[in-house]
């Protein structure tokens, strides 16, 4: 197990270093350097100021030196400075983190709550009308843009109950009810979309397990069909579902980018969009790296969980 953990950690580290290089190159695809962009968008003209900013950001140095400097800052936990707000990026990100975490956790909760039972029922009733209905519903979830779903939900709520999403963030520690109202609808919008993938993988894994001998044995012993499906089959079909939930996390963050924007939630994902819109490139670079770290850590956790749950993996037999 120790060897497996070490190998996974090494792969995660290599992925992150590689990702940092990719992001570093991506941010330099735009014509001109970051200072040119900042000056162009802010309308500055003073060349002395420009030189000073170039020096401050280190863009006057060779590319490898710039990369090494950025890495040094990241390792020491420095997420750079926002040129739009003229303050450290971490100061802006920190209060936004709880918003994104709460939305992500609630969305994940809804996606599992909707996806797993739907997948089980769909597999247990394969090629029956309920299977077709659930498959169409899940595919519809995958086909609808999350921002459109969010807009339609807002429109319906505004028309039906006169509810308008709150502009300011309400902390759950201040007013839990108002907070849940604020997060419930966006979390459901993201969760429904994500539940479609969970439903599909649960269905597929369940269908595979349902053909196993031990399921036939359980049925032959006279176990109730519900018990066979939920206790015997689901337990063994759970592993690929756990893996997918890890992968799903990355998918979910993508969904948050637009949902936070549509619902006016002041989270990290919305800040990324704002930073891109205002060409606050040092922040975009750091925030993208931050998302990569979160995704890699989520995948690493799932890998380790998987090995812990399935002994075949930690002993290298699978």
């Amino acid at each position, binding site marked *: 197990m120790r060897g497996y953990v070490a190998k996974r950690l090494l*792969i995660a580290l*290599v*992925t*992150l270093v*590689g*990702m940092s290089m*990719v*992001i570093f190159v*991506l*941010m330099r*695809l*735009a014509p001109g350097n970051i200072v040119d962009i900042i000056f162009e968008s802010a309308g500055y003209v003073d060349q002395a100021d420009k030189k000073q900013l170039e020096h401050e950001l280190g863009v006057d140095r060779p590319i490898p030196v710039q990369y090494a400097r950025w890495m040094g800052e990241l390792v020491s936990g420095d997420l750079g400075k926002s040129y739009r707000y003229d303050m450290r990026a971490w100061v802006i990100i920190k209060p936004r983190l709880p918003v994104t975490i709460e939305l992500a956790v609630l969305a994940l909760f809804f996606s599992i709550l909707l996806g797993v039972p739907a997948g089980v029922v769909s597999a247990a009733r*394969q090629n029956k009308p309920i299977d*077709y209905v659930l*498959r*169409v519903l899940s*595919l*519809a979830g*995958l*086909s*609808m*843009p999350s*921002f*459109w779903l969010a*807009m*339609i939900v*807002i*429109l319906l709520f*505004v*028309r039906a109950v006169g509810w308008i999403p709150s502009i300011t963030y309400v902390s759950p520690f201040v007013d839990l009810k108002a907070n849940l109202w604020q997060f419930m609808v966006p979390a459901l919008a993201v969760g429904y979309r994500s539940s479609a993938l969970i439903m599909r993988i649960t269905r*597929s894994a369940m*269908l595979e397990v349902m053909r196993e001998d031990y399921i036939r044995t359980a049925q032959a012993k006279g176990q109730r069909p519900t018990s066979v499906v939920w206790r015997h089959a689901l337990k063994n079909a759970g592993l690929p579902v756990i893996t997918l939930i890890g992968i799903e996390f*990355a*998918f979910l*963050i*993508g*969904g948050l*980018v*637009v949902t936070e*924007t*549509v619902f006016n939630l002041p989270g990290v994902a919305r800040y*990324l*969009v704002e930073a*891109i*819109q205002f*060409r606050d490139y040092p922040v*975009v670079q750091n925030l*993208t790296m931050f*998302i*990569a770290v979160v*995704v*890699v850590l989520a995948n690493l956790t799932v890998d380790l969980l998987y090995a812990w749950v399935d002994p075949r993996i930690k002993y290298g037999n699978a």
Partner: protein
Amino acid sequence: MARVVETVPVAAAPQALPFERARRSASLRFLRTQPLGTAGALLVAALVATALLADVLATHDPVRTSTHVLAAPGGDFWLGTDNLGRDLYSRVIHGSRISLVVGIASTLLGAVLGGLIGLVAGYAGGKTDLLSQRLMDIMQALPILVLALVLAASLGPSLTNAIIAISIPIIPRAARLIRASVLAIRELAYVEAARALGVRHARVALRHILPNTMGPFIVLITAQLGGSILIEATLSFLGFGVPEPYPSWGRMLSIAAAEYAEKAPWLVIWPGLAISLAVFGTNLLGDALRDTLDPRLRGR
């Protein structure tokens, strides 16, 4: 078997050749066994027809503004007008072109580039494979939308840049899929025979292995097309995709639609419904093709 071997005089040859007959029976089997896939194929066909016949189907110029601002659906404007008085029906019809062009071009670009990487990695093996695998891991460490968003922002908003930005995240998926196929095919006897005959590596890879990866490749393209249309819509919605004056479905749902949503809900409903139907169709077709072409999934 005997029927296939039997020779038929040329003059008495049946109208359909065995190959055509096999293709027709495969199509009929698809229609019978994949009703959802057939529905998907019809939706995709409708999307393609709309894009091709947009000039005929549209009732107004999709970019011309008028004084009929936020007119309700009906009369001259079947789906109403937007905040600049442009006919929404004509814009939705023309929007299908952008979605289809960006969707197909980005999917093909990403799938071909990724496919070639997968072919080289799978055929060469060893360090080349290891290196390309790690590179693909790295490219998949970011959510597709975030990667496309950062790329689109770096490259600037334009039709070509949107295609490039959407195609890059497809590369690792295609590479992994084709690599897996190549790994299985390269061990087959006919490939070994070709190598034993002294056929050069490039020729073995391109002439003997590549054509046999077409099944999964077609499935990937169909399945990915919906995703590409969706990303284009999202990028355009956020203002990083296809710029004005192109009538992009995602852009139609942007700021103006949100601002006037309560007063003119049709601005939100129709472009979103068009995106959803287009993606739904490609997803249905992609699923059915995967089930049909992947024997491991047959009967599930």
